[in-house]
Protein backbone atom coordinates (compact mmCIF):
# COMPACT_ATOMS: atom_id res chain seq x y z
CA UNK A 1 0.00 0.00 0.00
CA UNK A 2 1.46 3.30 -1.03
CA UNK A 3 1.80 6.05 1.58
CA UNK A 4 -0.27 9.13 0.71
CA UNK A 5 1.63 12.11 -0.66
CA UNK A 6 2.18 14.41 2.27
CA UNK A 7 1.73 18.16 2.28
CA UNK A 8 4.29 20.48 3.68
CA UNK A 9 3.00 23.25 5.88
CA UNK A 10 4.79 26.56 5.94
CA UNK A 11 5.24 27.51 9.52
CA UNK A 12 4.40 31.21 9.73
CA UNK A 13 5.78 33.39 12.46
CA UNK A 14 7.71 30.65 14.14
CA UNK A 15 10.89 32.65 14.66
CA UNK A 16 13.88 30.53 15.53
CA UNK A 17 11.88 27.31 15.83
CA UNK A 18 13.44 24.33 14.03
CA UNK A 19 11.27 22.39 11.55
CA UNK A 20 10.99 19.26 13.72
CA UNK A 21 10.16 21.23 16.90
CA UNK A 22 6.40 21.29 16.43
CA UNK A 23 4.92 21.44 19.93
CA UNK A 24 2.16 24.04 19.95
CA UNK A 25 1.64 24.30 16.20
CA UNK A 26 -1.67 23.20 14.68
CA UNK A 27 -1.19 20.50 12.08
CA UNK A 28 -4.86 19.66 11.83
CA UNK A 29 -6.87 16.50 12.26
CA UNK A 30 -5.16 13.35 13.45
CA UNK A 31 -5.35 10.56 10.89
CA UNK A 32 -5.88 7.44 12.97
CA UNK A 33 -5.65 4.91 10.18
CA UNK A 34 -3.34 2.07 11.21
CA UNK A 35 -0.69 0.68 8.88
CA UNK A 36 1.21 -2.57 9.07
CA UNK A 37 4.91 -2.02 8.73
CA UNK A 38 6.60 -3.27 5.59
CA UNK A 39 9.55 -5.62 6.10
CA UNK A 40 11.99 -2.93 4.99
CA UNK A 41 10.61 -0.64 7.68
CA UNK A 42 10.99 -3.31 10.37
CA UNK A 43 14.55 -3.94 9.21
CA UNK A 44 15.29 -0.21 9.34
CA UNK A 45 14.02 -0.20 12.92
CA UNK A 46 16.15 -3.27 13.70
CA UNK A 47 19.31 -1.83 12.14
CA UNK A 48 19.12 1.45 13.95
CA UNK A 49 18.49 -0.34 17.24
CA UNK A 50 21.56 -2.55 16.64
CA UNK A 51 23.80 0.26 15.41
CA UNK A 52 23.28 2.44 18.50
CA UNK A 53 24.11 -0.31 21.01
CA UNK A 54 27.40 0.15 22.87
CA UNK A 55 28.88 -3.00 21.30
CA UNK A 56 28.54 -1.63 17.77
CA UNK A 57 29.78 1.90 18.48
CA UNK A 58 28.48 3.13 15.14
CA UNK A 59 26.65 6.26 16.31
CA UNK A 60 24.00 7.36 18.78
CA UNK A 61 20.27 7.85 18.45
CA UNK A 62 21.04 11.55 19.09
CA UNK A 63 23.11 11.56 15.90
CA UNK A 64 20.25 10.00 13.97
CA UNK A 65 17.87 12.65 15.29
CA UNK A 66 20.32 15.42 14.44
CA UNK A 67 20.61 14.25 10.82
CA UNK A 68 16.82 14.09 10.53
CA UNK A 69 16.45 17.54 12.08
CA UNK A 70 18.85 18.93 9.50
CA UNK A 71 16.52 17.97 6.65
CA UNK A 72 14.76 20.99 5.21
CA UNK A 73 11.17 21.63 6.26
CA UNK A 74 9.64 20.37 3.03
CA UNK A 75 11.67 17.17 3.11
CA UNK A 76 10.80 16.69 6.75
CA UNK A 77 7.07 17.05 6.18
CA UNK A 78 6.93 14.97 2.99
CA UNK A 79 8.79 11.87 4.13
CA UNK A 80 7.40 9.14 6.33
CA UNK A 81 8.93 8.08 9.61
CA UNK A 82 10.98 5.18 8.22
CA UNK A 83 11.98 7.09 5.11
CA UNK A 84 13.56 9.63 7.46
CA UNK A 85 15.32 7.00 9.52
CA UNK A 86 16.78 4.87 6.73
CA UNK A 87 18.15 8.00 5.11
CA UNK A 88 19.66 9.00 8.47
CA UNK A 89 21.25 5.56 8.89
CA UNK A 90 22.72 5.88 5.40
CA UNK A 91 24.13 9.33 6.14
CA UNK A 92 25.60 8.33 9.48
CA UNK A 93 27.33 5.17 8.31
CA UNK A 94 28.95 7.33 5.64
CA UNK A 95 29.71 10.11 8.14
CA UNK A 96 31.35 7.50 10.37
CA UNK A 97 33.28 6.13 7.38
CA UNK A 98 31.87 2.63 7.71
CA UNK A 99 30.88 2.70 4.04
CA UNK A 100 31.49 5.34 1.41
CA UNK A 101 28.97 7.43 -0.45
CA UNK A 102 30.00 5.95 -3.80
CA UNK A 103 29.57 2.42 -2.42
CA UNK A 104 26.01 3.26 -1.43
CA UNK A 105 25.27 4.80 -4.81
CA UNK A 106 26.82 1.88 -6.67
CA UNK A 107 24.79 -0.60 -4.64
CA UNK A 108 21.61 1.37 -5.36
CA UNK A 109 22.40 1.14 -9.08
CA UNK A 110 22.88 -2.64 -8.84
CA UNK A 111 19.63 -3.08 -6.96
CA UNK A 112 17.79 -0.86 -9.44
CA UNK A 113 19.18 -2.87 -12.33
CA UNK A 114 18.08 -6.12 -10.72
CA UNK A 115 14.54 -4.86 -10.27
CA UNK A 116 14.48 -3.55 -13.85
CA UNK A 117 15.61 -6.95 -15.12
CA UNK A 118 12.77 -8.55 -13.13
CA UNK A 119 10.37 -6.19 -14.89
CA UNK A 120 9.74 -3.97 -11.87
CA UNK A 121 9.95 -0.22 -12.20
CA UNK A 122 12.51 1.42 -9.94
CA UNK A 123 12.37 5.14 -9.17
CA UNK A 124 14.49 7.43 -11.35
CA UNK A 125 15.38 10.13 -8.84
CA UNK A 126 17.98 9.84 -6.10
CA UNK A 127 17.22 10.19 -2.42
CA UNK A 128 18.94 13.48 -1.46
CA UNK A 129 21.95 13.22 0.76
Amino acid at each position, binding site marked *: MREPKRKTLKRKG*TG*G*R*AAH*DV*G*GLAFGRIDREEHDLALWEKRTDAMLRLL*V*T*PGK*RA*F*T*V*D*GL*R*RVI*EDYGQQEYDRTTYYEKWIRAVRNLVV*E*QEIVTRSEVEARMEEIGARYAKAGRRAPKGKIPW
Partner: protein
Amino acid sequence: MKARARPGRNARGAARFAPGDAVRVAGRDALGHCRTPWYLRGKIGIIASVHGSFRDPESLAYHKPGLPAHVLYKVRFKQSAIWGAYKGPDSDQLEADIFEHWLELLDRANRE
Protein backbone atom coordinates in the same frame (compact mmCIF):
# COMPACT_ATOMS: atom_id res chain seq x y z
CA MET B 1 27.07 4.43 23.54
CA LYS B 2 24.76 6.15 25.95
CA ALA B 3 26.08 5.61 29.46
CA ARG B 4 24.52 7.14 32.47
CA ALA B 5 24.90 7.28 36.21
CA ARG B 6 22.33 5.46 38.29
CA PRO B 7 19.19 7.55 38.50
CA GLY B 8 19.50 10.00 41.35
CA ARG B 9 22.54 8.39 42.90
CA ASN B 10 25.35 10.60 41.67
CA ALA B 11 22.96 13.43 41.05
CA ARG B 12 21.70 13.97 44.57
CA GLY B 13 24.93 15.53 45.70
CA ALA B 14 25.64 17.23 42.40
CA ALA B 15 22.14 18.46 41.44
CA ARG B 16 21.66 22.23 41.59
CA PHE B 17 17.89 22.02 41.97
CA ALA B 18 15.54 20.01 44.13
CA PRO B 19 11.85 19.10 43.87
CA GLY B 20 9.65 22.11 44.48
CA ASP B 21 12.18 24.69 43.26
CA ALA B 22 10.76 27.23 40.85
CA VAL B 23 12.82 27.38 37.65
CA ARG B 24 12.72 29.14 34.31
CA VAL B 25 13.67 27.49 31.04
CA ALA B 26 16.44 29.50 29.34
CA GLY B 27 15.32 31.70 26.49
CA ARG B 28 18.47 31.34 24.40
CA ASP B 29 18.69 29.85 20.92
CA ALA B 30 19.93 26.29 20.57
CA LEU B 31 23.24 25.62 18.84
CA GLY B 32 22.42 22.57 16.70
CA HIS B 33 20.69 19.53 18.18
CA CYS B 34 18.66 20.37 21.28
CA ARG B 35 16.01 18.58 23.31
CA THR B 36 14.53 21.65 25.02
CA PRO B 37 11.39 22.32 22.98
CA TRP B 38 10.72 25.76 21.52
CA TYR B 39 7.35 26.08 23.26
CA LEU B 40 9.01 25.83 26.70
CA ARG B 41 11.75 28.40 26.18
CA GLY B 42 11.47 31.16 28.76
CA LYS B 43 8.63 29.40 30.61
CA ILE B 44 8.42 29.06 34.38
CA GLY B 45 7.78 25.74 36.10
CA ILE B 46 8.75 23.76 39.15
CA ILE B 47 11.06 20.79 39.60
CA ALA B 48 8.89 17.69 39.95
CA SER B 49 11.76 15.22 40.33
CA VAL B 50 15.47 14.63 39.72
CA HIS B 51 16.21 11.91 37.14
CA GLY B 52 19.96 11.63 37.59
CA SER B 53 22.91 12.40 35.33
CA PHE B 54 22.96 11.75 31.61
CA ARG B 55 25.45 12.41 28.83
CA ASP B 56 24.64 15.55 26.90
CA PRO B 57 22.58 14.75 23.77
CA GLU B 58 23.61 18.07 22.20
CA SER B 59 27.15 16.72 22.09
CA LEU B 60 26.40 13.01 21.52
CA ALA B 61 24.61 14.02 18.33
CA TYR B 62 27.97 15.02 16.85
CA HIS B 63 29.91 11.90 17.84
CA LYS B 64 31.38 13.50 20.94
CA PRO B 65 31.23 11.68 24.29
CA GLY B 66 28.75 14.15 25.84
CA LEU B 67 30.71 14.53 29.07
CA PRO B 68 30.53 15.77 31.72
CA ALA B 69 27.10 14.27 32.30
CA HIS B 70 24.41 16.81 33.16
CA VAL B 71 21.58 16.42 35.64
CA LEU B 72 18.17 15.84 34.07
CA TYR B 73 14.97 17.01 35.76
CA LYS B 74 11.28 16.40 35.35
CA VAL B 75 9.87 19.92 35.22
CA ARG B 76 6.19 20.60 35.70
CA PHE B 77 4.40 23.56 34.15
CA LYS B 78 0.89 24.94 34.41
CA GLN B 79 -0.60 24.85 30.92
CA SER B 80 -1.94 28.35 31.52
CA ALA B 81 1.65 29.51 32.09
CA ILE B 82 2.84 28.03 28.77
CA TRP B 83 0.05 29.02 26.40
CA GLY B 84 -1.47 32.47 26.14
CA ALA B 85 -4.96 31.16 25.43
CA TYR B 86 -5.03 27.70 26.96
CA LYS B 87 -8.56 26.38 26.56
CA GLY B 88 -8.68 23.89 29.42
CA PRO B 89 -8.99 24.25 33.20
CA ASP B 90 -6.32 26.07 35.16
CA SER B 91 -5.41 22.82 36.92
CA ASP B 92 -4.11 21.22 33.69
CA GLN B 93 -0.35 20.73 33.66
CA LEU B 94 2.49 19.53 31.44
CA GLU B 95 5.77 17.85 32.30
CA ALA B 96 8.95 17.65 30.27
CA ASP B 97 12.43 16.29 30.94
CA ILE B 98 14.86 19.22 30.85
CA PHE B 99 18.62 19.37 31.43
CA GLU B 100 20.11 21.48 34.19
CA HIS B 101 22.05 23.67 31.76
CA TRP B 102 18.71 24.83 30.30
CA LEU B 103 17.26 25.86 33.67
CA GLU B 104 17.67 28.97 35.82
CA LEU B 105 16.71 29.06 39.49
CA LEU B 106 13.92 31.45 40.40
CA ASP B 107 13.04 30.43 43.94
CA ARG B 108 13.96 27.65 46.34
CA ALA B 109 11.12 25.54 47.61
CA ASN B 110 10.33 25.92 51.31
CA ARG B 111 11.70 22.89 53.06
CA GLU B 112 10.84 21.66 56.57
